[in-house]
């Protein structure tokens, strides 16, 4: 799926490097030193138990939360995000779990919310629907019409529209927070396929999920977090589901696990 395998990536392919990221909320240390790398065209699974700090880390990367210490490098350049739009300017997109869609607006209006194509003072609906249709067709998103109201779509369709919206900003990095939670089986398939398609376009995708079987379907690599730290980084080929569970729960496994940090 990825143009180059994770092992053969050139340094120029590195999109994001996080090192030693920390974040405290008062006395609570949410992040206690996280390292993470993401390459172009790669799908990285970010796993860990509840409270491990996955969502906080992704909010840091998306500019919604400001970290205390550590370094974020995007394309090798150190950056610091004070607002979500700073992160957007560095072409980092995120789809939150609640999707941020408007139920009573149609598909095209949701895709272009906040940046509707205009002709004079008026919305150019024709252009908006044509561009929306092109975006959806490119990503093979299964909706019957761009005029459909979002509220009438299934959970999976809504998820794919939300991802399509994020992708239409042409991000280099796309963060997906639990995109397959609470979806029917067939819908999970279409979301996973979409993730693969997006990565194939050269976008680096970070996937947060509790559905471990999904990780084996689309991910190239897994980063494991435990109590605010990144504790393991492994190619998916070296793992099976039992090893992965062991990495997440930090219970000793009979087999060898490879860890970048102890």
């Amino acid at each position: 799926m990825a143009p180059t395998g994770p092992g053969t990536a050139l340094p120029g392919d590195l999109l994001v490097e996080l090192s030693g990221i920390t974040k405290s909320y008062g006395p609570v240390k949410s992040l206690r030193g996280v390292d993470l790398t993401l390459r172009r065209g790669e799908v990285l699974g970010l796993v860990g138990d509840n409270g491990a700090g996955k969502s906080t880390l992704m909010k840091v990367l998306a500019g919604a939360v400001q970290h205390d210490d550590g370094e974020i490098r995007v394309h090798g350049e150190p950056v610091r995000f004070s607002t979500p739009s700073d992160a957007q300017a560095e072409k980092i997109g995120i789809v939150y779990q609640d999707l941020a869609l408007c139920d009573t607006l149609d598909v095209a209006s949701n895709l272009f919310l906040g940046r509707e194509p205009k002709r004079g003072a008026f919305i150019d609906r024709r252009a908006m629907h044509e561009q929306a249709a092109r975006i959806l067709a490119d990503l093979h998103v299964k909706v019957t019409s761009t005029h459909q109201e979002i509220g009438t779509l299934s959970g999976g369709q809504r998820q794919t529209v939300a991802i399509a919206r994020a992708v239409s900003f042409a991000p280099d990095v796309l963060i997906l927070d639990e995109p397959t939670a609470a979806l029917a089986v067939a819908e999970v398939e279409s979301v996973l396929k979409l993730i693969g398609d997006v990565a194939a376009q050269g976008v680096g995708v970070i996937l947060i999920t509790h559905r471990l079987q999904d990780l084996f379907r689309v991910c190239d690599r897994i980063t494991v977090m435990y109590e605010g730290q990144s504790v393991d980084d492994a190619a998916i080929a070296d793992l099976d589901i039992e090893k992965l569970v062991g990495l997440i729960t930090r219970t000793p496994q009979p087999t060898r696990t490879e860890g970048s940090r102890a």
Partner: protein
Amino acid sequence: MSTTQTPPEAPAGPSVQRLARQRSLWERTNKATLVMAGVTLAVFVFFAAADSAFLTFANLSNLATQVGPVLIVGVAMTFVITAGQIDLSVGSIVAFVAAISAQLLVAGWDSSLVMVAALLMGLGWGLVNGWFTAYQGIPAFIVTLATLSVVRGLALFQTEGFSVPIASTTFVAKLGTARWLGFSATAWIALAVVVLGLVLLHATRFGQYVIGIGAAAESVRRAGVNVKLVTMAALGFSGLAAGLAGLLIAARLGSGSANSAQGFELTVIAAVVLGGTSLLGGRGTIVGTLIGALLTQIIANGLTLLSVSPYLTPIITGAVLVLVVWVNLRGRDLAWFVQRLTRRA
């Protein structure tokens, strides 16, 4: 319904066209509005048959004048309700603007200045409502309930409850009696406001954001839209419309009274909701508001012609409101029922 399997992807070209194809007129029509249009037509036909005076040009022109203020404020209220807010203060703003405008004319202000002042007073109260609602986070229901009381109170205080006459030589008074093609200035202005509302709600970003805010304000905010400003603008718009209505009512009556437009806000909200705009926000229709305003005023006008006790009018209007909202809520069941009937036939 949505679980049907779509066939394997067609080539990109035709698929893009298929996706972007406009839906049929039937699919796009707000069904609640359609039901209302039917009810309005039925009521219209009923009164036309019941009283020969109803279908005369003089009465229809009079009806258009009566509908005018409700329609002007109703269009603006459609934006407020679609954005998930409510404005209870419009009746008080109408009375305030009517009374104070009349006083300004008595004080010797020129009509042109008074007209500008009337609009600014309405807009000002609307922005007060909007600022407290959008920027201070107080529910619009509470804010406008307070201004409902304060604004009419100020007008009463200022005029001591007396009706202030407007000299018939002033331009404002002439505006009140002016006719063009047999219809009053109020009717024509209301028509212009309807067209403006249609364009604003359905063809501009502002309208799009108003609908979006009513559906999910947080989603619109995350899309980078200034949600607070849009919300304040919607409430400012309804204040402005109330100011315009207040001026036109004073002009038509030839006097401004702090006691006018009692319960006006409820008539307006009823018209908007009857038309199919959702009180929960996120769904609004200007055409519906036009129909809703017509229906409420046709009932009032028709019952007056039939010399029914005037006390019966609010009872019938209220009953129609409940009936129609009930039909709209059960609309899907009703459509299903009709479908079943036609299939069997």
